[in-house]
């Protein structure tokens, strides 16, 4: 207790890792799990029975699973096809189908690219571009590339970002060894070790040496960042030099460090940039280092359950609180036994009764501990892709002006997609619960010119709304279609009633339906996962 209090007082940072004697490093043999096994474990952890997870209806399931796997709501057509499917294993087959949809990779790529990008310090005169990295990641995920191989590639790539997008991580951190060490540990191990950059942690195994020996793996990465175009950034080998840990007393000379991984595996000085980074990737992704798998599983779980086993997701460690530890360890075992198969992990999670349970009508305090499903926020890209799915918003990227003598750093043009993604976006490591709605989001949805252009009943406008108005003369049916279009469900009788009431109160039919479309677009439900 005293020790814990003292930790509180120190209050700068904590990296509570005791590597050697962690009970978590000596688990049962790793096996793949079946959904029923997982449900049993979750239920045990929650001191209940799997049967208490009462399933949500098909419509809710379709929207949830499409959002989680593809990052958008289902189209009206997809809703109809799914509704018409009467086979008993339709959910299972849907999950498989979505995992093989190309948008699955895109969605994973958006998540991981954001996870990195939100903590990249803005460079001085360069506009960073993440599209090449996202496309590369999407392909990797879609091809079923195991997570360890993806991360190895991220850590060991070199060359120009435009040609070798996997080099983005090292490139955009400008080859900065401390920043790369801290972010590698945080993103891929779920460990906050950056505080050990400046001082030993008094109650943990994290010493300054740990941090700086990790940084030494990046000692020879060299980055050249051009003006303006981020994708032209080049990573190369410095060809010489070692990493020096600064002395605590800045007037004294620092100490040259060997690359040493967190468990104590040492590596040689004098090695090349790529040799070092390859060695780091090997040790990091070695299955003996369970934190690597545990960290991925923690983030995957947060995305489907609303909170991580550890929170925030990038602050794991033996002195941190781990919720449902048996579930976390079993899932980690599954991920390891499947050789870091990302699709297999999501397939397992999404097939559980637990995942498919319904949101309670009135949430209780229980919800904070996983018993109940809570509504949560969509990421920025999910908000836009949902708008796009429903309304086919034209995306025009204004060209970036060429640099001139007067304007040397013309900012890149922004499309409506960029604007929505930026306004609704958030750092995924903070989790959807930490992120609050803000006024810019509200004003964007209320007034943005390009979005409002879609709220147009005029037949000449060619909008989705105008076409529906022409095709469908029955108001009730049109109300139903707009609900399906925007919220991927049918309206309740009460909802139909109040929409009808509104439509009757506005003399012009087109205007009345413009109101309804606007109201659905601005509804809380539209930007909520449930």
């Amino acid at each position, binding site marked *: 207790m005293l020790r814990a209090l003292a930790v509180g007082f120190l209050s700068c940072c904590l990296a509570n890792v005791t590597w050697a004697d962690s009970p978590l490093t000596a688990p049962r043999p790793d096996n793949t799990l079946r959904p029923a096994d997982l449900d049993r474990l979750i239920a045990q952890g929650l001191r209940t029975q799997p049967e208490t997870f009462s399933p949500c209806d098909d419509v809710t399931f379709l929207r949830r699973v499409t959002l989680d796997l593809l990052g958008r709501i289902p189209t009206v057509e997809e809703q109809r096809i799914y509704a018409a499917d009467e086979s008993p294993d339709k959910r299972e087959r849907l999950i498989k189908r979505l995992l093989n949809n190309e948008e699955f990779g895109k969605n994973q790529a958006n998540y991981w690219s954001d996870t990195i990008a939100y903590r990249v310090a803005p460079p001085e005169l360069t506009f960073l571009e993440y599209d090449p990295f996202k496309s590369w990641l999407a392909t990797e995920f879609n091809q079923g590339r195991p997570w360890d191989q993806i991360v190895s590639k991220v850590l060991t790539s070199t060359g120009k970002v435009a040609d070798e997008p996997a080099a983005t991580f090292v490139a955009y951190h400008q080859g900065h060894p401390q920043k790369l060490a801290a972010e590698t540990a945080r993103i891929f191990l779920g460990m906050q070790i950056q505080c050990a950059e400046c001082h030993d942690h008094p109650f943990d195994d994290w010493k300054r040496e740990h941090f700086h020996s990790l940084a030494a793996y990046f000692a020879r990465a060299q980055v050249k960042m051009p003006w303006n175009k981020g994708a032209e950034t080049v990573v190369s080998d410095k060809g010489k030099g070692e990493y020096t840990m600064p002395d605590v007393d800045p007037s004294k000379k620092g100490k040259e460090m060997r690359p040493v991984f967190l468990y104590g595996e040492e590596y040689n000085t004098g090695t090349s940039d790529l040799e070092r980074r390859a060695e780091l990737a090997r040790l990091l992704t070695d299955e003996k280092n369970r934190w690597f798998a545990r960290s991925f599983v923690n983030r995957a779980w947060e995305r489907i359950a609303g909170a991580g086993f550890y929170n925030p997701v990038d602050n794991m460690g033996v002195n941190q609180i781990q919720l449902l530890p048996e579930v976390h360890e079993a899932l980690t075992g599954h991920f390891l036994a499947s050789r870091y198969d990302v699709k297999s992990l999501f397939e397992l999670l999404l097939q559980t009764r637990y995942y498919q349970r319904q949101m309670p009508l009135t949430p209780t305090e229980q919800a904070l501990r996983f018993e109940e499903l809570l509504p949560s926020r969509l990421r920025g890209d999910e908000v836009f892709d949902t708008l796009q799915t429903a309304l086919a918003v034209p995306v025009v990227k204004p060209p970036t002006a060429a640099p001139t003598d007067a304007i040397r750093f013309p900012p890149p043009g922004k499309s409506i997609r960029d604007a929505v993604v930026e306004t609704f976006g958030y750092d995924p490591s903070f989790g959807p619960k930490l992120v609050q709605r803000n006024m810019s989001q509200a004003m*964007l949805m209320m007034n943005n*010119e390009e979005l409002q252009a879609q709220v147009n009943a005029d037949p000449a406008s060619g909008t989705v709304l105008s076409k529906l108005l022409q095709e469908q003369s029955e108001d009730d049916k049109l109300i139903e279609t707009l609900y399906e279009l925007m919220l991927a469900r049918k309206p309740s009788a009460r909802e139909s009633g109040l929409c009808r009431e509104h439509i009757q109160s506005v003399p012009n039919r087109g205007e009345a339906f413009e109101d309804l479309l606007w109201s659905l677009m601005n509804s809380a439900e539209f930007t909520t996962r449930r």
Partner: protein
Amino acid sequence: MFQPELCLGVTRHGIESRRLFLRRAAGLAVAGSVTLGWRDYLMAHAAELQQQGRSMILLWMDGGPSQFDTFNPKIGSENQGPAKAISTALPGVEIADMWPKTAQVLDKIAIIRSMRTPEAEHDRAIAHLRTGYRMNPAIQYPTFGSILSWARREVVTELPPFIRIGKPRIITRDVNAGVLGSSYSSFDIDRAGQLPPNVLPRVPHETLRRRLALTSRLDDEFEKLGGQSEVAEKEGVYDRAARFVLSPKMDAFDLDDEPDSLRDEYGRTNFGQGCLLARRLVEQGVSFVEVISTGDKNDAGWDTHKAGYRDQPNLCAEVDPAYATLLRDLEDRGLLEKTVVVWMGEFGRTPKIKADGGRDHYAKGWITCFSGAGVKTGQVIGATDKDGLDVTDRPVAAEDLFVTYCHLLGVDPRAEYYTADDRPLKLVNGGKLIEELVV
């Protein structure tokens, strides 16, 4: 209705970790003992500062203005260049001749001629002078407008508390709310007189109200499906957004009803009209307005490396009438006594003039100017040697400016906030009040 979200303690995290809980408990005890002295000081010296609702206008000379060509000419030194000195409303104090209008109101200004800071690269200096912290790749510190918005987070206002007019000349170097989060970001007006996109409703107010009523009824139904928390938060945000976009106070952003003569006096430049807008905004109680000067011709702004005398007259002509008129106009309306006005850039320029007339970056002996609320004006603080090479009297650091802003605006500079990843940060780290500057 701008009231940034309040930190909800336990529920902010969903699950509060033991360490966070302990840290908070421990932090409270520590903070209590540290801040006691400051609070006593505030009580004794300026108990109602906060209630007086003081505002601040920051006139930001983007790129780093030359001290020789503004408020510290060195006549007789070979470093001076073509600018002459002129006498001012302050007997014995001369400034560069490109500032004739400002010279007439110099009694309303306190000049600090002894800024001495460690950073002479734009990105690092901007980060330092706009946040009070040296640049750190691991953490995005917030700028003062965000800090002030955070400190006043419980004050509900119809207009945003932090408004920025004009664009930074190179956006990659920009700093904003950083770790405080987007709720404390600036509300940006690129061109004075025009509102940014998404603010003005695209339909008649009546239609917008009708739609807001309908969406709120739809939300009520979602609430019954279990969406209570989302609906409550959304309704709060939409309520504030709707009040803002439909507010009669939005007229403050419109300059058309200002007399032409006054608009001319401010100067028909984006910066000049921006200063006029700044006055209108503080009149409406906006806490912090920043007006950015870049000369509007290129993205070099005040960064006059090359052909310094090509851009210098244009830059000075943009700021001189605007600055002088702003101080007069604020005073005429009784606003100067509750508005702090600060003129500055991220550093100064090298004493030695290059062959093409330009000057490079220089962080020794540069200038900031203070006016308004709580400022003892009509004085010069600090000095540099005859060639302007270094500070000879009373060096002032970046952190000193921030402690002084806090003092003038009634904010405790040692107050702490938590970043989203639970790091406690002081509003200002280090620094001392510039005693002789304040009343």
